[in-house]
């Protein structure tokens, strides 16, 4: 395990000056900017009915994030992380080191998870700060203090757990195929399918087990279509499935001949 942590530290060290690190910060900030622009462009006397903070964080922020930004972010991040090795044909060099291959693969996965956590942290903090700023600019919205930091933290944590299966799947695809187009194609196709599933009447059943839809299932408000179990199923499948796919990916990478 020490070897895995060491390899992960090296993986994070390699992120300096990379687009992958910049993207992890820019994507949530861009989403917050869009959200702010959208709200500020509406009627100045607009009121958010019922629980304003919950509606603002979940229905506005998390929904927009989960349905589009998150799956595309994960797709881009894993493609960039794997591309760092494919581009300069690093795998032959890395795998000729006295380090087990599964540790190098695991480190890549953990680095991708760390970038995801960073993005979610920026999103969570940003939503709290943006809500507070909007409360000053537009008091009618009802985003009065206190900021529900604990609920936000719970939400981003659930999204993190529910995204792990998608992260593990796309990491395996990105490491397995050297072309940037393959993980990008898989990621974008999945995002489009998830979009259809999420707005379809069958969202309650399929979205629970479709990796691209699971982050939204883990945080979406409880309704007739989305009972509370949807949260647990998405979270459980995300973490459990993510671990299983990570182990399978590490096994596959360990046994494969390195030709590139």
């Amino acid at each position, binding site marked *: 395990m020490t070897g895995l942590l060491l390899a992960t530290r090296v993986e994070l060290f*390699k992120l300096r000056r990379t687009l992958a690190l910049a993207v992890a910060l820019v994507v949530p900030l861009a989403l917050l900017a869009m959200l702010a622009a959208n709200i500020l462009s509406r009627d100045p006397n607009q009121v958010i009915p019922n629980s304003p903070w919950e509606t603002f964080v979940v229905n506005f922020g998390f929904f927009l994030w989960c349905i589009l930004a998150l799956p595309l972010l994960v797709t881009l991040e894993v493609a960039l992380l794997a591309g760092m090795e494919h581009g300069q044909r690093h795998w032959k*060099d890395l795998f*000729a080191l006295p380090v087990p291959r599964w540790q190098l693969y695991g480190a890549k996965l953990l680095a991708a998870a760390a970038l995801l956590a960073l993005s979610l942290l920026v999103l969570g903090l940003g939503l709290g700060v943006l809500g507070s700023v909007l409360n000053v600019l537009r008091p009618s919205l009802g985003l009065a203090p206190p900021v529900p930091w604990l609920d936000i933290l719970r939400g981003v944590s659930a999204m993190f757990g529910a995204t792990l299966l998608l992260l593990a799947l796309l990491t395996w695809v990105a490491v397995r195929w050297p072309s940037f187009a393959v993980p990008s194609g898989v990621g974008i196709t999945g995002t489009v399918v998830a979009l259809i599933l999420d707005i379809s009447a069958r969202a309650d059943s399929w979205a629970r087990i479709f990796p691209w839809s699971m982050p939204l299932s883990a945080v979406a408000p409880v309704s007739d279509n989305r009972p509370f179990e949807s949260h647990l199923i998405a979270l459980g499948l995300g973490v459990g499935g993510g671990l299983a796919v990570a182990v399978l990916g590490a096994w596959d990478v360990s046994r494969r001949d390195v030709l590139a």
Partner: protein
Amino acid sequence: MGVPDLPLALETIQLSHRFGPLVAVDRLDLRVPVGSIYGFLGPNGAGKTTTIRALLGLIRPRAGEVRLLGQPLAGQRAALLRRVGSLVETPSLYPHLTGAENLQVKQQLAGLSRTEIDRVLDVVGLRHDAGRLVRGYSLGMQQRLGLAKALMGAPELLILDEPTNGLDPAGIHELRELIRRLPSEHGVTIFLSSHLLGEVEHMATHVGIIGRGRVLFEGTLGDLHGRTGERLLLEVDRPAAALQVLGRAGWDGAERVGEAGRIEVHIGGREEAARVNALLVQAGLAVAELRVEQPSLEALFLQLTGSAQLDRQVAA
């Protein structure tokens, strides 16, 4: 042919690998003595890179065994690779990191001391450029940094695959000098693959030539030259008479070449050249020029690998 019983830094025993129906390496037996610079030669597609990948555990050979530093690679890959440095084809470097940061990646992953970074930078003469981003390095500098990376951890065996690929003549010369002094200064055995004969001829103490995945020759450079002997080039006033004199004395293979008056004789050493000269002068012939030439390694290489190509065509 073959390397006598010396301690071996690298050995393959009946190593075989195939990609689908294509046999890339076919029962390959290599023996690389400790302290040697071993030139691993073969035309493109001969199986050099496949062999090197098997040596580093990057591919699992279908049959045979790889032994590094006297021990089988299978089962103790990590322990053995800790004592081996490698540079496979182009150096794998992160362009967004500095030279020193690139070395830091290996230093941390391999659990080496930080002082190793400065040590190898000094060996390859890149200390002053270590803080620059690698994307600004010339190809030669990148190759030297790749070599520095391979030298980290003071390996006992260095495996270099086409290390001068893409370099200009100055870069080739620089890298060649660097590689040549490594065994004496750092006690490392070098296994160097190349398809550039001149490059190996200037550095190697031993050579292994492969074609179609099989060993065509293995031994010292002297052994290789000894396979074909030398040739004597003469310029005489009456070449027809000279050929008759030489033929009567037993040099049947003598023949006229190129310009009028030039003759080529295959000989077994410099003493024989002196005997030919004396014979012609005694016969009343005027010898205007006499030159002993060794066939270049390139000629020998083409002779060996050319016949392998021919075998392939016949087999097809």
